């Protein structure tokens, strides 16, 4: 439990470690995309950490990174094929950011820092914590960007064919709201900047742990 909470708050991959920013900035225009992306990363992270921590003693140090990348990309491909088969809409929304999980600093970073050293149980728990932390961070960013940028909250839309449930709420518009800028690239940078600053402030102004 402590390991999981650690991943969500103290070592939040997006707000504290500031890793794996590409998808965090790119697909957070809609609330729905954010949690689905987070979920994909969570699944990939758990399985790759599990496999890597099991084989950690067999892999020689010299070829560690290539082997890890191969394992990660295998799980990415599996998720990609599953999405193509069952939720093709989602696959086209996530676009290239799904295969890009392969070179995501979070997944490889956790493989190097945790899965290659700790026991199977610790690695899996760590993966769940970091994965959840990432999902929560993406949901927070996407919530602000969607509400401010498009004036809607999309809880379930693209996957509604799968679940049979659709929920998109529209907020009243005013003169200055919604602001297009927030759903554009600049909005992504601004939102993330404010949250990283907020987390730094909450942790007592300590410097970021750099990459």
């Amino acid at each position, binding site marked *: 439990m402590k390991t999981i909470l650690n991943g969500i708050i103290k070592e939040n991959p997006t707000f504290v470690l*500031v*890793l*794996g*920013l*590409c998808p965090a*900035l*790119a697909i957070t225009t809609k609330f729905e995309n954010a949690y689905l992306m987070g979920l994909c990363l969570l699944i990939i992270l758990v399985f790759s950490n599990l496999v890597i921590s099991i084989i950690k003693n067999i892999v020689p140090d010299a070829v560690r990174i*290539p082997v890890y*990348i*191969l394992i990660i*990309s*295998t799980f*990415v*491909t599996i998720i*990609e*094929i599953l999405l193509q088969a069952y939720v093709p809409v989602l696959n086209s929304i996530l*676009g*290239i950011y799904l*295969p*890009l999980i*392969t*070179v*995501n*600093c979070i997944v*490889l970073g956790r493989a190097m820092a945790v899965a290659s050293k700790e026991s199977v149980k610790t690695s899996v728990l760590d993966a769940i914590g970091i994965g959840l932390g990432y999902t929560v961070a993406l949901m927070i960013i996407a919530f602000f960007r969607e509400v401010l940028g498009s004036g809607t909250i999309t809880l379930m839309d693209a996957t509604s064919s799968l679940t049979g449930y659709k929920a998109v709420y529209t907020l009243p518009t005013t003169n200055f709201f919604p602001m297009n*800028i927030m759903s*554009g*690239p*600049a*909005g*992504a*940078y*601004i939102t*993330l*900047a*404010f949250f*990283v*600053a*907020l987390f*730094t*402030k909450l942790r007592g*102004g300590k*410097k*970021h742990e*750099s*990459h």
Partner: protein
Amino acid sequence: MSLISLFISSILAQNIILTKFLGICPFIGASNKEKNAFHMGLSVMLVVTLSSIITYVIYYYVLVPTNTTYLRTTMFVLVIASMVQLMELLLKKYLPKIHQTMGLYLPLIATNCAVLGITLLNINNDFTFTQMLVFSFGSSLGYLLVIYIFATIRERLETSDISKAFSGIPIALLTAAIMSLVFARYL
């Protein structure tokens, strides 16, 4: 789309850092020295252009005929990583001077999402061979341009008075936001 407009838009309006968010880890983390940023950008240009050509050929002449396009991600990552390794060895042997300046960045580029991202975009956008060349060269030139401008701005930021919580990464992100407004023609 004509080749010239593809080239211009891939450098400016469709810039990979500022609109597609590819390769921002080194962009935020490492680019606070003007010279380093320039060398890093040059290395990225070299790797992106070469690996785009190789992955394009592999995709259309190996993966498509054998009906194994689902292996694309794995294949591309392997190709990029081994190409970077090979390039480092060749540079060390034949051009030691260039290796001294660029060698440091090559291993980092192997896991840079800009490289994998551009090679995947080439395939996703159904580019012809010429379009692919123009797009990958233009995008990586855009990368060099932005990372260089950004590094010069950050050199100024280092000495300026910024509130404690915003110093470091947050102010860098805000700078990037303003730059992306300029590049995306909001301002």
